[in-house]
């Protein structure tokens, strides 16, 4: 099974007034094709920063210090996204890798209709496929009714789309698109794109997509808004979807629907997903592999079943215990609070709160050790069995 | 894209304008442009009393007789063929009837010929209208012996017959019947309020038809409702082309004028409030003459291409008047209202020594030098230089702190010097000269005795007028402009117990009233002179007020203007003067 995405020693800092926040202190993870990797951790441990760093969407004062993001791109493996120029990155974003966010309501632009926002993804990436499809469409129409005048118009439109296919930036086309009557050719484009929007919306199980398209974001429910965000992301059927806590602020019933939708997409489209959440329940249900993050480091990485069966990193164990279960058992809380990332503790960043901490933990940062097949831990005295 | 748009637009603007280089010495040679500040109130001769309207009407309409060049005491015939006098028999020996033979072959701007009926109608129409605060009292006093058609409460006190009989047409001349002899009557008829208008034109435009039954409706119309407010039809050298109130008024040459047509094709009077803008237009040649406020004279010194006329005596003067009986009720300007160092009693100025103290503590030279740039003279009394019977040898007061201190010590039996006083002098804000005069009084009097306190406050013109009329001002500085060049027009308002200023001062002197009455009714000039000399001496002795300045005007014009002359009695004399005589090039 090939690794679709491999992140190596990713470091990202934020240069704020209080000092340099070392948000990511060397992250290594990989997403296998068709599989779902869950990233779990308390708020503020750097989950979202990882997601944004992968797509290089970190804005000043943040800066990606070092590391590699290798992405399997059309046959040859090692394409380091971080070293590529902005144009390449733009072709990847939304087309190969796309992202969905926690706050669906603020992720949608209030002044444009939902349909417009989804069609923007198509227009950005699939211009050539659209023009080809339109040319075929025109030819089909020409064959059906060969009324003289219509024919002439069709041929004219066809020529325009052919021209656009070769050189989409030509000034002549931009000029023609301004003339009122002549730019009727755009009708084809609008029809083709809206057909695709309806297609993606039905695929996501949205009822009556034609009506929904005209609506504005503030008129839709939370769940529906999240479906639209997913539609935007999956418009050009990317190979990797990064989901940054998509269901966190939805109430449980809607949350279940969205998770179910994502699972169906995974199976039907063979989509590989990087799923970020702080809810262990969701991880158990959806993810194949899990990475537990704490204060900018990954402390444990393993298959879902293995990690639930025997969590070997003290933090993971503590996390497990703090989740309410059916049997009545006292919930443990972890003493102390999340470290300040400006002056993080030496060695293993969890040692001040770790019950099993020994002298070495405070000095040396533990490396990843393979406890069992597909089960890695970064801890000096990890718990056995 | 946006960046391109903006720079593009500015580029076009610059290119389009740059080729407009300015050249040419005399701009628009046959159009005379006057830039001033006063707005015209109305074009109706019977309505207009302000100088700006007077200047416009004088360009369009003409009177029976007119001033002879620069003189104010002799006339030339205009619409009348002769100037009436006792010698040529056109004025009756008893000075009660004046006959004016009317010139023939004169046409109005609407083509109608000039007839004696037009003259009679013009004067009667003025007396019928007689608006509040209008100039027509000057026709009522000589013709009917009263000051207006209505009493204080506003109901009409005269009958139409009185007006009709006062002016009659006899053959082809017009006869005026006066109630009592009135020597300045000729100079009144030479002014714009006696201009001749075309009866047919006025009646067509809804004016008074000249009959008895409807005359009351046309009496005292609301502002702007008078018939000739915006329209004009006279016999003058220029016709009215257009009037945009507050903006400009444009006259165009009347080609079939009964005398030789004017040299200028067009005359424009523009309103330009901002001095800097006005000056730059003058320097750039866009204006041929401008109104130059006194304080900016220096800015035009040593500028070539400009001709300046200096020391033009104007028939106006500014004086300080002492209020003998100040109205104490609710009056902040007299402080405590008692002689206790924190105010003044209402009759403070009734004590002559106080008045003399003030008179001697005013530094006349510095005032004339600083406030008027040395371009004003000190008047000797109510009758000023340029008026007949002006007495140049009349004694005047001068700046003498010791004399002033002497009088102040004697004032109120020495109480004033011990206790001191505090009073407020007002001036209408914006009038730099009056403000300077008030400051001179304050600084010199406060220097005499630390207990003397004078405060100066500027107020709006409307408040200034209100406080003068209600008698609240302690001492007020105000000016007077001649209606007609005759001592009676100054002596009456300054000294007569019913005169405008003396009434507000509550200055009453029966001898003076008698002298004034005899002065106006005496036809023989030598006897009139004796009365007016006595009046000027009494004014010096009683010192109800002190003459401060008689301004000497200035006239500024570009050097390509020709034919300008100065007659003090013409409205806005220092500006356009008489457009008929002007030319350019």
């Amino acid at each position, binding site marked *: 099974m090939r690794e679709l995405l491999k992140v190596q020693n990713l470091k990202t800092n934020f240069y704020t007034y209080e000092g340099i926040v070392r948000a990511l202190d060397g992250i290594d993870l990989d997403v296998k094709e068709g599989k779902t990797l869950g990233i779990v951790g308390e708020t503020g441990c750097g989950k979202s920063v990882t997601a944004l760093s992968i797509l290089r*969407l970190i804005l000043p004062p943040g800066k990606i210090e070092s590391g590699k993001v290798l992405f399997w791109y059309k046959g040859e493996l090692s394409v380091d996204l971080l070293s590529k120029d*902005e144009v390449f990155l733009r072709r990847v*974003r*939304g087309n190969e890798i*796309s992202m969905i*966010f926690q706050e669906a309501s*603020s*992720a*949608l*632009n*209030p*002044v444009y209709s939902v349909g417009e926002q989804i069609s*923007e*993804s198509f227009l*950005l990436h699939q211009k050539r496929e659209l023009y080809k499809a339109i040319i075929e469409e025109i030819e089909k129409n020409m064959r059906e009714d060969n009324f003289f005048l219509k024919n002439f118009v069709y041929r004219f439109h066809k020529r325009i789309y052919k021209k656009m296919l070769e050189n989409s930036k030509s000034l002549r086309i931009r000029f023609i698109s301004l003339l009122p009557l002549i730019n009727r050719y755009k009708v084809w484009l609008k029809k083709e794109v809206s057909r695709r929007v309806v297609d993606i919306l039905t695929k996501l199980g949205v009822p009556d997509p034609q009506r929904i398209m005209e609506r*504005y974001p503030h008129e839709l429910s939370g769940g529906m808004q999240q479906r639209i965000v997913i539609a*935007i992301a999956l418009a050009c059927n990317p190979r990797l979807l990064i989901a940054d806590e998509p269901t966190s602020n939805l109430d449980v019933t809607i949350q279940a629907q969205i998770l179910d939708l994502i699972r169906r997409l995974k199976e039907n489209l063979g989509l590989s997903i990087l799923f970020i959440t702080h809810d262990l329940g969701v991880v158990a249900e959806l993810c194949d592999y899990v990475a537990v993050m704490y204060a900018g480091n990954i402390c444990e990485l393993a298959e879902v079943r293995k990690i639930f069966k025997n969590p070997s990193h003290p933090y993971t164990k503590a996390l497990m215990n703090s989740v309410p279960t059916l049997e009545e058992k006292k919930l443990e809380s972890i003493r102390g609070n999340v470290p300040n990332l400006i002056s993080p503790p030496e060695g293993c960043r969890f040692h001040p709160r770790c019950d099993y901490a020994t002298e070495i933990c405070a000095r040396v940062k533990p490396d990843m050790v393979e406890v069992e097949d597909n089960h890695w831990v970064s801890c000096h005295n990890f718990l056995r069995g | 894209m*946006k960046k391109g748009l*903006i720079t593009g637009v500015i580029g076009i603007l610059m290119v*389009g*304008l740059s080729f407009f280089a*300015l050249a040419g010495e005399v*701009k628009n040679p046959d*159009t005379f*442009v006057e830039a001033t500040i006063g707005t015209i*109130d109305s074009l109706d001769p019977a309505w207009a*009393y302000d*100088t700006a309207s007077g200047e416009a009407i004088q360009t369009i309409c003409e009177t029976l007789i007119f001033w002879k060049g620069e003189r104010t005491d002799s006339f030339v015939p205009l619409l009348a063929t002769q100037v009436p006098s006792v010698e040529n028999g056109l004025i009756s020996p008893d000075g009660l009837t004046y006959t004016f033979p009317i010139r023939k072959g004169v046409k109005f701007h609407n083509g109608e010929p000039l007839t004696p009926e037009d003259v009679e109608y013009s004067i009667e129409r003025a007396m019928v209208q007689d608006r*509040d*605060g209008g*100039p027509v*009292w000057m026709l009522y006093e000589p013709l009917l012996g009263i000051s207006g058609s*209505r009493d204080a409460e*506003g109901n009409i006190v005269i009958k139409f017959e009185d007006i009709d009989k006062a002016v009659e047409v006899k053959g082809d001349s017009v006869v005026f019947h006066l109630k009592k002899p009135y020597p300045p009557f000729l100079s009144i008829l030479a002014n714009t309020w006696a201009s001749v208008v075309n009866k047919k034109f006025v009646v067509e435009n809804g004016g008074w038809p000249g009959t008895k039954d409807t005359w009351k409706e046309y009496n*005292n119309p*609301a*502002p*702007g409702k008078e018939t000739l*407010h915006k329209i004009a039809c006279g016999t003058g050298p220029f016709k009215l082309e257009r009037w*945009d*109130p*507050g903006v400009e008024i*444009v006259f165009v040459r009347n080609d079939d004028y009964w005398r030789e047509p004017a040299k200028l094709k067009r005359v424009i009077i523009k*309103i*330009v*409030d*901002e001095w*800097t*803008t006005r000056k*730059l237009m003058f320097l*750039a040649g*866009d204006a041929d003459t401008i109104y130059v406020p006194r304080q900016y004279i220096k800015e035009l010194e040593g500028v070539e291409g400009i001709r300046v006329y200096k020391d033009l005596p104007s028939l106006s003067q500014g004086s300080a008047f002492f209020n003998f009986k100040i109205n104490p009720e609710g009056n902040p300007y007299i402080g405590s209202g008692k002689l206790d160092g924190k105010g003044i009693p209402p009759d403070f100025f009734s004590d002559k020594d106080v008045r003399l103290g003030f008179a001697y503590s005013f530094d006349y030279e510095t005032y004339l030098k600083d406030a008027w740039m040395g371009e004003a003279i000190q008047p000797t009394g109510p009758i000023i230089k340029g008026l007949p019977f002006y007495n140049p040898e009349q004694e005047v007061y001068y700046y003498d702190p010791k004399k002033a201190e002497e009088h102040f010590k004697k004032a109120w039996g020495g109480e004033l010097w011990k206790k001191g006083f505090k009073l407020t002098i007002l001036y209408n804000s914006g009038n730099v000269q009056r403000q300077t005069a008030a400051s001179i009084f304050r600084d010199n009097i406060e220097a005499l005795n630390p207990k003397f306190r004078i405060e100066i406050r500027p107020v*709006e013109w*409307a408040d200034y*007028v*209100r406080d003068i*009329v209600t008698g609240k001002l302690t001492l007020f500085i105000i000016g007077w*402009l001649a*209606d007609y060049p005759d001592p009676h027009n100054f002596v009456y308002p300054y000294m007569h117990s019913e005169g*405008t200023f003396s009434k507000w001062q509550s200055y009453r002197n029966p001898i003076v009233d008698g002298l004034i009455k005899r002065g106006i009714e005496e036809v023989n000039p030598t006897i009139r002179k004796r009365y007016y000399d006595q009046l000027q001496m009494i004014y010096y002795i009683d010192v109800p007020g002190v003459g401060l300045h008689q301004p000497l005007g200035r006239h500024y014009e570009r050097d390509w203007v020709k034919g300008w002359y100065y007659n003090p009695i013409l409205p806005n004399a220092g500006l356009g003067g008489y457009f008929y005589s002007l030319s350019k090039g």
Partner: protein
Amino acid sequence: MKSYIIRRVLLVIPVLFGVSIIIFAILSLFSPEQRAATFITDVRQLRDIQGVIRKHHLDAPIYMQYFSWIKEVLKGNLGWSKTASRPVLEAFFYFLPNTVELSLFSAPFIILIGIYLGSTAAVHQDKSVDHITRAIAIIGWSLPTFWFGLLLLMIFYGYFKGLFPPESLGLNSSLYVNSKDFMRFTRINTIDALLNREWWIFVDALRHLVLPVITLTVVQCALVMRIMRSSMLEVLGRGYVITARAKGADEKTVIKKHVRRNAMIPVITVSGYLFAGLMNGVVITETIFNRKGLGWWWWRAAVQLDIPAILGAVLFNGVLFVLTNLVIDLLYAYIDPRIRLG
């Protein structure tokens, strides 16, 4: 949408009533003699001031005058303006074209430059571009308009010998414009000149517009720029901007399509004040450049206590302002769907 408009229009009536109350409160501050004095232009007319008071029935009790005034206003007779020597309503329509021309030419510059500078400053926050544009805008905003205007006049009219003259038209063009063979449609010189295809008048009118427009623009566009900058900064931080970037859109389209349209909303709401600011600027600019518009007329009326004109001015401004607010609300609803669909 329709009910929204009707509600807004109905709101206009109480506001206008309020405006007339304020106007009359100002009027009651004057005393009868004061008001009468304003009808006197020459000291010689002081003779019968009582006559003038009676003529204009200035001594009746205030509320009585208020009702007679309102009756007159509804009949369209707003009294006689001495400074313009014509009825107030007629004077308003006479002076309106000049002011409209000035605002017509400066408004686009103010808004265009303001938005452009505002968005560039926001996009490059805290870089040199941001500091420079902000400094220029702030200096423009703190510059006393009259001082700046007079300086411009001195340089471009005095020193450069009449390159950009004051007033609204040169002598020859104003004579021609007022002559019979020039069709007056809107009484706005530039537009009439175009309609009559008199290019030289059009250029002359433009030449007279340059200085006043610069004076007005420099001060007013600082306000637009500041509002635009802070609203752009706020929108840049929003979620949908990151979504747009995540879609793969390039920075230019993100700014142009997504950010600027949302950032325009606060600018539209504030352009109501912009109108008020413009009217203030117009008063000073027209006085300095001697362009006989509403601003000049109101200044002259205030200085010479021409009461009917002052009251008329406050009333007209009230009506104009309320109408612009209505237009702005409708524009606001058009841009922001959240408002339109309630």
